[in-house]
């Protein structure tokens, strides 16, 4: 295909624009919500100073002005302080503590899905286990998360918010995220289906006759699709991470986003939504890079030994 570069280029374009588009859309959306953060702190009927507060928070000149001033600060990594949810706490510091937690949660959850991918590709997860996997996968993440939260609270009590408790929450959360809502099942069946379809191609039969390995022949061709599936799974895990963090009280970015939205704490919502947008952008870039590398590999002229 002559225009092989088109798809990766679109992905790169999307990856670069997402961190701008997502906070802009979020700003517009939360502006459309009824109520006004300044009035929540200082209802005009009960105190003065609402306007001053609105000015301080750049809420007085519409969503465009708010977004612009926020962006200016964000580009210099100044996210200000929380208005309600963590009133007075530095958001930069909170994010620097929360992002590794969410990354660890998603990475540990990826261990499960990664195991499913490898197991399906190599064949050691038998197809006979599919009905069992699908049954387990039907359990919603919310249910398992609630059970997990109860287990941690009962075991650790007051210490469940301490280091040990948080570690337990993280481990349980990653298992919940990686197994529930069909995450593991989807990884297994999706990967197996992809490889099975590819193995039916004629070139694979020829490769087998030549004594070559199936995986080394099919892998370059399934890699773009595999990366697409991986990206979709990681996005699924990222969105699920919000629910898991809230249910299990894990100190991650997802919980910050949830609480910020609930309390109309714009100061918290925008940077946390941007973090998720950046994660999505990273995945898009990785996928684009993978596609470019595969395309270059496929188009490389093979060395032919002189007779």
């Amino acid at each position, binding site marked *: 295909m002559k225009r092989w570069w088109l798809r990766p280029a679109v992905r790169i374009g999307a990856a670069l624009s997402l961190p701008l588009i997502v906070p802009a859309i979020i700003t517009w959306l939360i502006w459309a919500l009824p*109520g006004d953060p*300044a*009035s*929540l*702190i*200082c*209802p005009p*009927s*009960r*105190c*003065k*100073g*609402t306007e*001053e*507060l609105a000015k*301080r*928070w750049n809420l007085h000149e519409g969503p465009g002005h708010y977004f612009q001033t926020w962006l200016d600060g964000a580009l210099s990594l100044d996210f*200000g*302080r*929380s*208005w*309600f949810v*963590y*009133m*007075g*706490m*530095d958001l930069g510091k*909170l994010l620097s*503590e929360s992002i590794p937690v969410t990354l660890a949660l998603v990475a540990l959850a990826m261990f499960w899905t990664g195991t499913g991918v490898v197991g399906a590709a190599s064949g050691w997860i038998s197809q006979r286990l599919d009905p069992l996997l699908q049954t387990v996968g039907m359990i919603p993440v919310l249910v398992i998360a609630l059970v997990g939260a109860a287990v941690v*609270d*009962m075991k650790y*009590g*007051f*210490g469940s*918010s301490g280091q040990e408790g948080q570690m337990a929450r993280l481990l349980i959360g990653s298992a919940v995220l990686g197994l529930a809502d069909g995450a593991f099942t989807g990884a297994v069946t999706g990967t197996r289906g992809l490889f099975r379809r590819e193995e039916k191609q004629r070139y694979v039969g020829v490769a087998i006759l030549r004594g070559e390995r199936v995986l080394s022949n099919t892998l370059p061709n399934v890699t773009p699709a595999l990366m697409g599936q991986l990206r979709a799974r990681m996005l699924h895990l990222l969105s699920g991470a919000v629910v898991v963090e809230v249910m299990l*009280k894990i*100190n991650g970015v997802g919980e910050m986003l949830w609480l910020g939205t609930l309390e109309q704490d714009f*100061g918290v919502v925008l940077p946390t939504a941007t973090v998720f947008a950046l994660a999505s952008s990273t995945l898009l870039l990785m996928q684009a890079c993978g596609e470019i590398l595969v395309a270059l590999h496929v188009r490389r002229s093979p060395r032919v030994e002189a007779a």
Partner: protein
Amino acid sequence: MALRRTFLALGGLAMGVLGTGATLKYYEEALPTSLNPLFADTMVDARAQELIFDRLWYRDAITNELSTRIVARHDVAEVGRAIKITLKEGIQWHDGTTMSAKDLCFTVRAMLDSRTPSVVAAAYQEFISGCEIQGPSVALIRFRKVLPNPRERLGFAILPASQFSSTSISPDLEFSARPIGTGPFKGVRARREVIFDAFNNSHHTPSLVQLQLREGGDPLLQIRSLEGAEVEGIIVVPPGSRADLRASDEVSLKSYDLRSWWYVAVNSNRAALADKRVRQALNLLIDRNQLREFAVGVQAGDRNSPCEFISGPFVQTSPFYNRSIPTVPTANRAKADALLKSAGLERVGGRWQFNGEPITLKVGMQANLNNEATDLLEQIGNQLGDAGFDRQTSKVSADEWNQEVVSGQSDFDLVIGKWSFGLVDAVNDLFHTNGRKNIFNYSDAATDALLDEYENAITDTEQKDAYHKLHALLAEDLPYLFLWKLDTKSGWRTEVRGNIITPYFYFTEIDAWKAD
């Protein structure tokens, strides 16, 4: 100089930390929203801030006398329109600097600054006009009018001027999470907890080394943690769990007076409810004994009952309570029916109608009150239903309550709520036509006149007279159906000794608390 202050601050902290006291862990209803007293939004905030700051005056937990830890001397000045305050010497802020009159006047000016978006400050703006520094430790606070007992109204916490760049104080400053006070503990808010480290001062010598506050969550887990000695206390023990703790030898239940009373506010702007006879009938249809038994678990005749009925907008221990107005503990259906009929209501098929239309009462209740009085909303709904009124009940979130109900913008017919009056029993905001917390925009000329009489009173006696008459008037006109004063219960392990719980503020006497 800065080095000296650092050493002093560290010294205060070190003396606290290295002391022989213990660490106390306890569950609160929620994490505090802010540790800045200007932005106290909930009782949780007030309790946490009490550990960090000193209020100019406070009420002694035992004698109820007005006391102070930071004022050496006070004199009423300018014919009762000012008070001259001399602060004690040598009181340190948690950062090592010394408190002075500059801090006192800064606090007053911050509260008066219209750019400070504080509901707490708005209350002080009504009667304080300014502050003048007259010496390193002497300040003169001026009032807009003569106050019979100014100390009673000056229960605000002092803030350190050095921590702020101007008197316009915003809630999102770092001070809200890492405040500096002169109180017995220095507090820092983290994501899931607040840690209070003891700070020895010339006027505070806490025996405890540290307090750790976390949000309670599930009541069963809280009780198990308390019984298993993982925590030392629970500030608010849910009613359903009190029987278990009462039976335990290792935990004692202690009464906590929230200085609050419960009510059912009536929307007197709505159709039938505009008639006072209908409101009086509703008052007679509510069986308070039954509500108390089912919702709070207290039976009529119980000794040391934490739930005491009221007949007006004050608690029975208040000097403003008019003892000649009786409470209505049980329902009187016959009298209520007579009143309803005289108001023009008709009973058709067992349901009351007004002007030919069936009456459906929309009843709301602050959602978190259910933790203290289980299913109260349903109980009241059932009583109204049995009496012949259709009803729709719903719980109101804290945000909706603060934004819509309190500001008079809700569409309920009845709302069940709790009024926490804190330091001062003033109820003007609730019932005055221009009151900031007038739930259903109740307006009555006679009520306004009595409230104005209270505001303009220059002696205690005049204030009492005004409010006694108000009590009688409101018991007749019934913009609220007055229910009860309900103390809540805290649970503390018996290893915690000397734990006197101050009404409303809780930790005022924390210096005396000890733990093994």
